[in-house]
């Protein structure tokens, strides 16, 4: 094949540019415009393939992101309000499910709150100014045990009052039971004529900038720290040792019942989505539902003992009565 004039030019342009005498290059310039245009013209096939590949990957990521629920997150700390439908599933568990489950969990043992006696009551004023028993929760967003506990606590408390502003959350991605689906109390409010609920989410579910600890979220008051240091110890919690410190989640129900650690294992929730767990709450044959509802019944029984068994439809239900019997509450 005969060489075209253009191929001659290319051979010339393949010499190192820096070794080409300027004058010679200048002489050649009018005769070889393609050499100059080789980089100045629109990109060739190689360029477009590379750029196209990047664009396709980015577009795919964006599509996946949009399809998976928009910009909001529940995974790593940014507050995302829980969907109203899911809140309804949590707070609207049928009475028949509570009663069918009782305190029986087919998966594993569910731990009831620990009864303590002779302690000063923990009270607070509710929104109408009345002094009522307080339920205090201390936990953290990273904590998978807190993640499990929140499911049953939210459900139990919803029988005595109304939740608002619950947020979606998952436990820390690189801890045991990573990414356990749950909720956060960080911005939640709870209204009840029977009791006051107070919560402290001490840390977020990601590390601080130095990577030394979890990012601080909320700090307990001195009074709350005093309660933790007094009750979240081996003196009141059987099985705790000094080396355990003050485990979370920690809950006190008017200082008459205590919870230290999850009431059931977070493993129960492993590999389940938040919506799958919530949807299953109306199914008493689900092992996951059993664990959550049994724990909710135990906590309901504890609360009933603080509210003079009000509301009566809750406190005299067979599920709560079963929990009272198991906890030896009169």
């Amino acid at each position, binding site marked *: 094949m005969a060489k075209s004039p*253009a*191929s001659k*030019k*290319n051979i010339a*342009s*393949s*010499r*190192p*540019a*820096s*070794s080409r005498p300027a004058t010679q290059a200048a002489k050649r310039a009018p005769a070889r*415009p*393609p*050499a*100059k*245009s*080789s*980089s*100045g*013209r*629109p*990109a*060739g096939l*190689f*360029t477009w393939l*590379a*750029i196209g590949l*990047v664009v396709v*990957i*980015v577009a795919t*990521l*964006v599509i*996946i*992101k949009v399809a*998976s629920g*928009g*910009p*909001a*997150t529940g*995974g*790593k*700390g*940014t507050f995302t309000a829980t969907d109203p439908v899911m809140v309804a599933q949590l707070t609207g568990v049928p009475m028949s499910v509570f009663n069918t489950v009782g305190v029986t969990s087919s998966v594993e043992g569910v731990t009831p709150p620990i009864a303590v006696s002779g302690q000063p009551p923990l009270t607070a004023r509710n929104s109408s100014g009345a002094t009522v028993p307080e339920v205090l929760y201390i936990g953290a967003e990273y904590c998978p045990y807190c993640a499990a506990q929140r499911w049953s606590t939210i459900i139990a408390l919803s029988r005595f009052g109304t939740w608002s502003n619950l947020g979606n959350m998952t436990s*820390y*991605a*690189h801890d045991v039971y990573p990414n356990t689906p749950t909720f956060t109390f960080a911005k939640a409010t709870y209204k009840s004529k029977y009791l006051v609920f107070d919560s402290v989410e001490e840390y977020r579910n*990601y*590390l*601080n*900038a130095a*990577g030394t600890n979890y*990012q601080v979220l909320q700090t307990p008051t001195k009074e709350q720290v005093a309660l933790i240091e007094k009750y979240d110890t081996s003196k009141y919690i059987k099985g705790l040792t000094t080396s355990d410190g003050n485990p979370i989640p920690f809950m006190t129900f008017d200082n008459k019942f205590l919870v230290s650690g999850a009431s059931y294992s977070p493993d129960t929730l492993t590999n389940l989505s938040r919506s799958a767990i919530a949807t299953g709450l109306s199914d008493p044959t689900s092992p996951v539902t059993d664990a959550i509802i049994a724990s909710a019944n135990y906590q309901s029984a504890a609360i009933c003992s603080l509210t003079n068994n009000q509301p009566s439809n809750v406190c005299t239900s067979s599920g709560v009565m079963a929990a009272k019997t198991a906890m030896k509450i009169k």
Partner: protein
Amino acid sequence: MNRTLGRVPTWAIITTFLLSLIGLGLSTYLTITHFRPADLFCTENGVFNCSLVTNSGESRFIGIPVAFLGLGTYVVMSVLNSPWVWRARNYWIHVARYVLSIVSMCFVLWLLTAELLIIKSLCLYCTGVHIVTFALFIVLTQVSPAQLGWVRSRAQ
């Protein structure tokens, strides 16, 4: 083996150098705020949340803060894209520049995946670095393969 280098237009040299300096500035800021998170100024909304991204588990790669990797990359990139180094005769310097751009682009795609699918928030300044990296990748993909003799330019 006779390695020869093609010509690179002046606009590409200027553009890559300026982009590298912008990337260097952004990654320097991100490195500073890695140590002083309070200095990180960023809008927090449903899409952007810088502190969430820079404090996430994905903000480290094999234990090294990604901000450091970005700074290191752009220090090297700024040197490689300086007009003086563009004029270098050493073939492998120019190979290194393009390979670094490709590796950086791949790493940006990983970070974007982490931001969109794992952390579910974007970091404004990180996105700035990603855009600069992509722009550099486009310019270098347009000139480097032809410069290195890997592809024939349209003129050929």
